[in-house]
């Protein structure tokens, strides 16, 4: 297992870019850049405000593919767990974000920045249960 190293400067710069993307979405489209809500609204399969959501998702996917093509194995990526864990984790993230109306971007960044009490509660909940899940995994594996 490789140990992830603490990296504050890229973290701050990357965070600022994420904030900039959220600001662009807000000031351009008047919308919150919450990835789970963008996906959830896409997956009701109804016409309407479809285009911008699909374009946003394409921007995320496409940039990942371009980064891999440019950087190759220099791109840091360490994933533990096999297909079974990915299926369970994905289902929990899919259902949980829709029931809870948001994820790390919508609640954790945009909601807390708007001083939304709902988003603060949501963020404390998913951080606490995420820490509990990692702790439980470390005891089992």
């Amino acid at each position, binding site marked *: 297992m490789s140990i992830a190293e603490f990296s504050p400067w890229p973290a701050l710069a990357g965070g600022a870019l994420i904030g900039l993307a959220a600001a662009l979405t807000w000031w351009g489209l008047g919308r919150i850049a919450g990835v789970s809500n963008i996906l959830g609204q896409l997956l009701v399969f109804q016409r309407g405000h479809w285009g911008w959501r699909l374009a946003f998702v394409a*921007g*995320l996917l496409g940039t990942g593919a371009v980064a891999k093509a440019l950087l190759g194995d220099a791109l840091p990526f360490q994933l533990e767990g096999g297909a079974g864990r990915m299926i369970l984790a994905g289902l929990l993230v899919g259902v949980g974000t829709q029931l809870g109306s948001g994820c790390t971007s919508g609640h954790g960044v945009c909601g807390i920045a708007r001083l939304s009490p709902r988003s603060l509660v949501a963020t404390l909940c998913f951080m606490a249960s995420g820490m509990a899940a990692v702790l439980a995994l470390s005891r089992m594996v």
Partner: protein
Amino acid sequence: MARILFAFGAGVVFAIGLLVAQMTNPAKVTGFLDITGRWDPTLAFVMGGALVVFGASWYLSRRPSARPVLEAAFQPPNAQVIDWRLVAGSLVFGVGWGLGGFCPGPALVSAGFGDARVWIFVGSMLAGMVGFNVATGRKG
């Protein structure tokens, strides 16, 4: 068309931010959540940077004269109540986040890296979202 291009650009900037911050590396995410092991505080700095920039832009948009460029009005989330759905949903999401090391944004970016397990995660996440929409009769 302007809205589509704009949203695509915002998605690209969002993804570059996640890549620079290494949030697309699941080990960085689980390292942050691993408070009893080798805790890696990186994610807190990512959130801090994002909060300052988006917080400032949101604050400026509160002026009565402020309008988004491509829409008639800002559309902030209107839910106010802290209910069981918010709490239970967020708890469930967190467990999946800790198990996989992915939340939705980074998962979509990492899906472009080519590891089949990320596609399995994303497929399962989308299935969970569709299942939720169908089960609750959501119409958008």
